[in-house]
């Protein structure tokens, strides 16, 4: 089935983005860069997973329900990400710079 193949590809791509997000979280040098990794890679990973599963849904309503999760997750990570960055800046966490003097 072509649909199954597309689903599988989307699911695998989603897992790859989640993995990249985790690697970024583990390797990036400060809170701001780690936020970049999570806010972008993980959300894209979730979007791919949801799209892959929506293709497998029995009805349009179920597919819509799955896809409705994505904007909610985006709102959550935009808002939480902003709060964390704001908090870090208030705490005086300076952004990491390459080749520090």
């Amino acid at each position, binding site marked *: 089935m072509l649909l199954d193949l597309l689903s599988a590809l989307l699911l695998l791509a989603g897992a*790859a*983005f989640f993995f*990249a*997000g985790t*690697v*970024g979280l583990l*390797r*990036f*040098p*400060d809170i*701001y*860069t780690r*936020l*970049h*990794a999570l*806010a*972008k*890679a993980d*959300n*894209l*990973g979730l*979007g791919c997973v949801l799209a892959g599963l929506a293709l497998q849904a029995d*009805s*349009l*309503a*179920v597919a*819509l*329900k799955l896809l*409705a999760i994505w904007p909610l997750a*985006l*709102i959550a*990570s*935009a*808002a939480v*990400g*902003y709060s964390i*960055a*704001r908090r*870090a*800046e208030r705490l005086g966490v300076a*952004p*990491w*710079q*390459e080749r520090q003097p």
Partner: protein
Amino acid sequence: MPHRQQTSHATTSRSALRRGAIFALLWLAAAEGNLNAWPLALAGVAGATAASLWLLPAKTLLPISAGGLLRFLVWFVRQSLAGGIQVAGLALQRQPALRPALIEVPLTLPPGLPRLLFTAALSLMPGTLGVRLQGDTLLVHVLDRRQPLADDAARLANRVAAVFREAR
């Protein structure tokens, strides 16, 4: 903070119809198209519409252009894909090529929803993360300070302005 305003009946009822239709669609999706509990659905949709009109009266909301919103969403998904690929590439590099910096961006959009959408979307786009919204500027953390931030921000502001018809 909710406050009632003098709103013309026509605006309010048009708004109620539009929001009611959106809530009904959400119910249909959440119930997977099953309408056995239709009395509950009716009550839920009516309650949600009433609450939304109370918390966000039709008049306080800038008119939203459906076409602008749709174009924004399509463009946003593409940008979000680019952002995810860029940061994934950086994370998996042997030596991540990070040149981060904090840069102030002047806000051209009106306060309220347009600025919030701008800040939220910017954080999900390639290389940028909103850090502080203060006055008419947004402090942005960039992964690479050579990125043409002013151009990217202007492009995003145009897209957001197209969603809110009278935002300019």
